[in-house]
């Protein structure tokens, strides 16, 4: 299933930086929402019209949370070097070998995204990706 901005997420209070937490009915939905939460922060709530589609793949980490961190690290690198933001995404595969997504990228626009956060890095500290009852919950802390 394809998800597009905006998607629900919650900011986790952190003294110096910012955390994001999401929920999904499935692991795929939680991962897609986590990806889009990162974009929402980088875009400062500004719209991200999709200009091109690409597949992005990361190998599995030692646990699902670290796989999610690896995916967000990759997307942050694309943002830092090509000014690309994920405006939409679909999780094609999420299993023990890693994650593969089709990502609809839009371009960072200095005026439209002027209120965006300058995220330096995606951290492992407090990273979670787990089933909680009927839902999947995921969170990461981002270094600003």
């Amino acid at each position, binding site marked *: 299933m394809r998800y597009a901005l905006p998607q629900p997420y919650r*900011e986790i*209070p*952190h*003294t*110096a*930086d*910012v955390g994001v937490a999401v929920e999904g009915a499935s692991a795929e939905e939680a991962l897609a929402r986590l990806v889009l939460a990162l974009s929402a922060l*980088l875009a*400062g709530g500004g719209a991200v019209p999709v200009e091109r589609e690409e597949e992005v793949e990361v190998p599995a*980490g*030692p646990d699902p949370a*670290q796989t999610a961190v*690896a995916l967000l*690290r990759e997307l942050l*690198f694309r*943002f*830092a*070097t090509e*000014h690309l933001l994920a405006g939409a995404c679909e999780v094609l595969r999420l299993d023990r070998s890693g994650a593969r997504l089709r990502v609809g990228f839009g371009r*960072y626009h*200095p005026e439209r*995204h*002027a*209120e*965006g*956060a*300058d995220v*330096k*890095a*995606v*951290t*492992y*500290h407090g*990273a979670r990706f787990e089933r909680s009852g009927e839902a999947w919950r995921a969170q990461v*802390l981002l*270094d*600003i």
Partner: protein
Amino acid sequence: MRLQRVSDYLWEIPREGGMKVPGRVYSDGMPAPDDPALQQVANVAFLPGIVRYSLAMPDIHWGYGFPIGGVAAVDGERGAVSPGGVGYDINCGVRVVATRLEAAELRPHVHAVTAQLYRDIPTGVGSSHAIPKLTEAEMDAVLSKGARWAVGRGYVAGSDDLEHCEEGGRLAGADPSCVSARARQRGSDQLGTLGSGNHFLEVDRVAEVYDPAVAEAFGLRLGQVAVQIHSGSRGLGYQVCDEALAELTPTMARYGPEYAAIPDPQLACAPIGSPAGQRYLGAMMAAANFAWANRQVMTGLTVRALCHALGLSEREIGARLVYDVCHNVAKVEEHLVEGRPRRLLVHRKGATRAFGPGDPRVPAAYREVGQPVLIPGDMGRYSYVLAGTARAMEETFGSSCHGAGRLLSRHQALRLARGRSITRELKDKGIEVISRGKKTLGEEMSEAYKDVARVVAVMAGAGISRLVARLDPMGVIKG
């Protein structure tokens, strides 16, 4: 968290569980026992080879793995190096450039000067192209030469800039070959840029002198205009840290049970002598050199902006680098431990080197009084210049605080800023501020930070640093 009072300004977290040493926190009262940063102080005490204490300065706040405001020295051969103990913004640091200008003369021109600085020094998310993009060969030179590279290209304040940088503006152990293509890609167009978040460039006036003799040695006098620059290694440094953590987090347990017992993946570490440890150290030191070159380029751009905005010559501006200090770094240093010199790797994560009088590593001009310790506050109040002490050498491996420390989360600060014009409020206080986005101003407003006066008072009260002078902002540029 259990805390025991050691003295008026010092509290101890007793050793328990896997902690190899106790934690020690400088504070002007008992720290809040439920502060998550204290748990991080205890976690750092698990590091293999840690010596004496896991230390926290009075500006401590919750970080990742390490608390911000943390200091950990490990044995230089048998200890562990932790990328989290340096942080993402490797060699984030601050410098103070003094000038011949008088604040009273500058006052009518503050807007023009601030606007010129904002035009000439790129700020904000992904800021780039202050100078032409570096070629691969230029990048290698920057990574190995640090501030010297920028000085060689004419980005200078005075004639003794390099002597007035911690380590001469260059870590000799840097190994550019350990810096990945991705890290180089993130940094190649960012040299000479400020970035965002808490980074800033300020035009200040020396508003108070507490120790005239030391201030004179530092070249500071009442009413003088000085410029503060706070920035680091930009995307290049973030990527170096990110890649090291990605390598070490899943693999550190293979170094043995001490490493498997590390309680937070963000504290991932490796033995200093291991190939992974050496690779990280080589890359981290190269990133530190990039940061020094970055601040040095911005120094040159600042001097040119002042000349342009004021119609004065460089000679009339009379810029001179007072000092440049690192806030996020790990360095091999020799310290006396139980009366014997020991080679240590000192991690300072949001902490400043504060070497005392007589230390040969302090520049000759300052050796009698101790090194300048530069402590930025927030954009609406003030910053401080302190001096290192012999006590710091005895208690904290020659380390002091690094800033005010955040009080409110960014979210809380933005809520408090809603409906207000921070720009107008600062203007009413006589401070011109120019920023890329309004959000940064809300996140970075004064109320978001502890009062840095209280933070430096703890360091002075504990004898870790001496108060020398206070700098008040007149013009500020932010990302």
